[in-house]
């Protein structure tokens, strides 16, 4: 579920957007003990030409936006994707009713880039 945006005017540029994942929404609440959900975020927005420095763009993205500006039909704009993610730990029951604490990498989007 995507929470409503903050009061400030939404930027169309590529950046992390708020996304809270509730484990009960996906039907996993009977085996995940904690957390019940977490702020996972997602990347959204445009990577327009010319790419600004704050957009964490790769050299490939710079060239792709240039080609896109010349040929919008043939070449798409670069994608807005996660460039830094962080881990979370999850406590859950396994199929043998053991309690497991597991560390999962790349669960929260911290930064996005083009």
């Amino acid at each position, binding site marked *: 579920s995507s929470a409503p945006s903050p009061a400030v005017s939404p930027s169309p540029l590529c950046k992390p957007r708020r996304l809270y994942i509730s484990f009960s929404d996906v039907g996993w609440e009977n085996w995940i003990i904690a957390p019940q959900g977490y702020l996972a975020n997602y990347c959204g927005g445009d990577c327009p030409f010319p790419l600004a420095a704050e957009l964490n763009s790769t050299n490939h993205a710079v060239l792709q936006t240039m080609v896109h500006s010349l040929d919008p039909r043939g070449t798409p704009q670069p994608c807005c994707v996660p460039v830094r993610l962080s881990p979370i730990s999850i406590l859950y*029951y*396994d199929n*043998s009713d053991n309690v497991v604490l597991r*560390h999962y990498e790349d669960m929260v989007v911290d930064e996005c880039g083009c």
Partner: protein
Amino acid sequence: LSRQESSLLKSLGLSAKPSPKSAVPVPPVLWRMFQRRKTQPRPQEEPDSCRVEEFNVPGNIVRVFADQGRFLPEGQPRGRLCLRKLLFFNLSALEEGERLTMAQLELQFHHNSYQPPGPGQVLELRLYPASPRGPPQPGRRPLLERSFVRMHKSLLFELSAALKDGKVPGGDLALVLEISAGDGGSPRSPCAGSDALAATSLLAVTLGRRCRARRRR
């Protein structure tokens, strides 16, 4: 959707969606670790997510297995031997490719900690490797020996070295625990306190296949 869910669960390292039959209480050690990880500030440097900082060992999965064993023999123990128990841990939940990096046995007692230990309350503990069906062969060397006083609420034993190369043969772990009266005990009640064994559990840290691949890289 169910096919998508299966592939999601697989990427999370689960072969199928768990459906717990009973909601067993969460061991306090796991709650403490979970809360600490949730509240600790994010370090400046990228943390090693394939290391369990609390125990300073490689790993990304921590499990607590309950003991499914039984007391041996069925009758009353005799002589200096106060208690003999088969400890049995079903480790079938360990997935293929996981490597055991730490195993810690915890014995919990329900002693009255306000009562100081008196003479005759020093007990000796021995732990033997066993088969799930019965006690160890006579003359086998114990995995570990320790003397303790009745006042301890909990005893921890590091078993990682005893479990060779992190492999658990047959997917299960069977041990025989013996508690006997120590030297200089009271002749009237040499085994006082040994009957207070309340629960036994095994905490296991493993390194999942993904982490192993990452570490190799």
